């Protein structure tokens, strides 16, 4: 019984603190209300809340009743500790919000503790059950942690692009946007980017460059991958090994010589230069991913095709390619994302704003004269296509990522 009680107290304290911080910060970030954080009080209130939840099992067998009892104790203690002002404001000023936030705090804190002790006799905890409780708690904390570290930056990126520099400097926690200001004003950063900074052209150029890269990469790597996986020729094993090595060569080692040579040839500040470099850096990855897939296709199909009088190229066109369309699609998307996200070569090679790719264009916004929200709007513009493609084809891409993500 002592063990269970200690565990309950610890979990109550941890969850009291975590929920208060997370919910407090979220409320501030979303609504712009300056909810002063009562994290320490919440930590203390979590303890009697959790204890009450556990002892409520002696009073009632109904799980919901136990839950409500725990919540009530938590809420009462929290209100008492904060001097009747759980959000830093007296209960009377914003009663509805206060009560809602208080209820959410109580529900999440006590709920998390209840989940950890779910269907477990806390008075007779052995090591096994204790670890199970701990694991439940750790998993809950893990979800909160990962969701927070991922959502926070993306939320901040999106919301900043709708705000004004002055507002951001005044209260960096307030990400609420004023919807009454009208669409033109809300999207003013985006309008500015498209009108003054020519982002429409950057998007077009990035699209052209990425699509051309995909086409060139596939044109070279599909036959190459086929040759490595199906044809016999001297040096085949060496070749397939060295492909791996080649995509371990860091771009920074290539930058100086390519910069020097392209400068002399007049290719440096040109899209042609990028279109020479991008496919060459993606071909090895693509070839590696595709040859793995081709190997997995049954060669009997191709042999049957040859028996029926197809030439080798006919077999590739009629049998192998149609069968490997999913793999080719996932490679294509993967290469597209690499080219779209590419920063180093675009940054080093391109000087003229007329031929900036989107990444290069966003980097050019990083100056003290350009307000922060413009840069964030640029970041949103460059991110959205990638995330849309990713979410749309997730199943596809996850396979591709795991096969080729040595690149990176």
């Amino acid at each position, binding site marked *: 019984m002592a063990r269970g009680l200690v565990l309950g107290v610890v979990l109550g304290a941890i969850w009291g603190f975590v929920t208060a911080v997370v919910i407090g910060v979220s409320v501030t970030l979303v609504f712009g209300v300056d909810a002063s954080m009562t994290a320490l009080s919440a930590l203390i209130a979590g303890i009697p809340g959790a204890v009450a939840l556990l002892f409520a099992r002696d009073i009632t067998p109904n799980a919901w009743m136990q839950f409500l009892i725990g919540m009530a104790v938590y809420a009462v203690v929290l209100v008492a500790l904060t001097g009747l002002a759980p959000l830093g404001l007296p209960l009377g000023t914003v009663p509805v919000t206060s009560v809602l936030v208080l209820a959410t705090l109580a529900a999440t804190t006590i709920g998390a503790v209840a989940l950890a002790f779910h269907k477990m006799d806390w008075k007779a905890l052995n090591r096994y059950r204790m670890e199970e409780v701990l694991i439940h708690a750790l998993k809950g904390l893990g979800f909160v942690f990962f969701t927070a570290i991922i959502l926070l930056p993306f939320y901040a*990126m999106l919301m900043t692009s709708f705000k004004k520099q002055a507002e951001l400097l005044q209260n960096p926690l307030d*990400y609420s946007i004023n919807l009454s200001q009208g669409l033109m004003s809300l999207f003013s950063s985006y309008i500015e980017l498209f009108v003054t900074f020519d982002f429409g052209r950057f998007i077009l150029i990035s699209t052209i460059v990425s699509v051309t890269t995909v086409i060139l990469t596939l044109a070279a790597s599909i036959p190459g991958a086929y*040759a490595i996986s199906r044809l016999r020729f*001297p040096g085949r094993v060496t070749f397939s090994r060295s492909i791996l090595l080649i995509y371990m*060569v860091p771009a*920074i080692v290539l930058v100086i010589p390519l910069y020097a040579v392209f400068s002399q040839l007049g290719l440096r500040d040109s899209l042609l230069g990028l279109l020479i470099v991008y496919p060459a850096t993606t071909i090895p990855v693509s070839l590696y991913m595709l040859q793995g897939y081709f190997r997995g296709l049954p060669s009997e199909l191709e042999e049957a095709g040859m028996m029926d009088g197809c030439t080798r190229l006919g077999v590739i066109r009629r049998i192998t390619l149609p069968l490997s369309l999913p793999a080719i699609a996932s490679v294509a998307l993967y290469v597209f994302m690499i080219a779209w996200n590419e920063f180093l070569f675009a940054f080093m090679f391109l000087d003229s704003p007329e031929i900036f790719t989107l990444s290069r264009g966003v980097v050019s916004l990083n100056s003290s004269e350009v307000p922060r929200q413009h840069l964030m709007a640029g970041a949103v513009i460059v991110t959205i296509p990638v995330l849309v493609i990713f979410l749309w084809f997730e199943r596809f891409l996850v396979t591709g990522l795991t096969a080729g993500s040595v690149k990176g």
Partner: protein
Amino acid sequence: MAKTAAKATEADLARARRRIGPIERREMRLAFGMLSPTVAAVLLVVLIPVLANFWISVKPIELADLRAAKPLVRERVQGDVLQPGDAFAVRYRVRSSSPAAEVRDVEFTHSLPPGLTLTDDAGTCTLSGPDLRCNVGTLEPRARVDVNVTLTAGQAYFDAGSPDLRAADPLATGRSTNKLTSFEFTFDNFRKVFDAAEFWNVLWVSIVYTIGGTGGALLLGLFAAQLMMVAFPGRGIMRGLFLFPYVSPVIAVAFTWIFLLDPFSGTMNAILTKTGVTDANINFLGQRGIALWTVIAFEAWRYFPLAFLFILARMQSLSSDLNEAAEMDGATPFQKFWYISLPQLVGIISTLFLLRFIWTFNKFDDIFLLTGGASGTRTLTVNVYEQAFALSNLGAGAAVAVVIFFMLAVFLAFYFKFVPKEEGM
């Protein structure tokens, strides 16, 4: 006896090798044909540049040397020419376009109107037909050479309607050594790189960053994979969300984090001071000692999804027999994780570690965007940029790149030696 046997087999082998039938030969030719675009691209953009990087690293070459030195010439015409016998005093000023390289065999020509006779005391110029040709010789870097000639107008000049001498521009030609292809070598680049006190610091930062970033990403990935093992509603969405940091463009997420971590108006500092974790604002990316850990955390944040995907895939492919047997024997959850799951994941984790180690070591964009290599975060890769483009010394940058290349070769040797074949990716 054994010797002759060995010889016989060798001879057999050689014969067998020569006995490639027409079908095999055709197949071989087809294979080479199909591989040729790949080989060409890789050769041109990867292998030759790597070699060129070695070449540049032993050459005294600066960023400015990339523009070939050219002679430039401008003329100035003086004198009132009103009747035959009057003369123009023309000054040609020749200078080099390059502050660093000399130009040899500099000559310029100027197409003049008819009816002029040349008086040139220095003897550098000749006038043949309408063309004035002057030989300047060698032009030192930054040097200016003036060529003064007198052109006396004859009747023919006035008959032509006294045209302007400046109607045509003079054109200069000259030969300059392309520093890139010359045979001038030096070890100064390496000396400079290794002598600099900061080099060992840079190396140390690189190693700390690589180990920290890789380890952090793997730990987070392992943790995330544990969360996703058991099915729950919304798992698909969560998995997609977990991959966001990895698939988003680095420029977008780097700038977002820069703003979040801003020491004056950053959300992170506001949260920390509000919740009472810290009293004063922390300069996450600007303070020596803290900045390195911030970029390591960023690296872990950005790349944990990868480790997560691989580890999850491996965990899902493991059979649950062992776990069930251990459960029967009364193993607790942590024991099951420690003694059963983890040992089965050691293979994939060590492979991932080596791969991510190499890639983190190669990483440039992230640190460059976050701190630009300031406040004690300059890694070797950022140092390449710093030397070659910020300090304009291409040779020194290439020398750092050579160091990177050799360290990488060592890591790769490790990788191929220690990664078990079945885990090899």
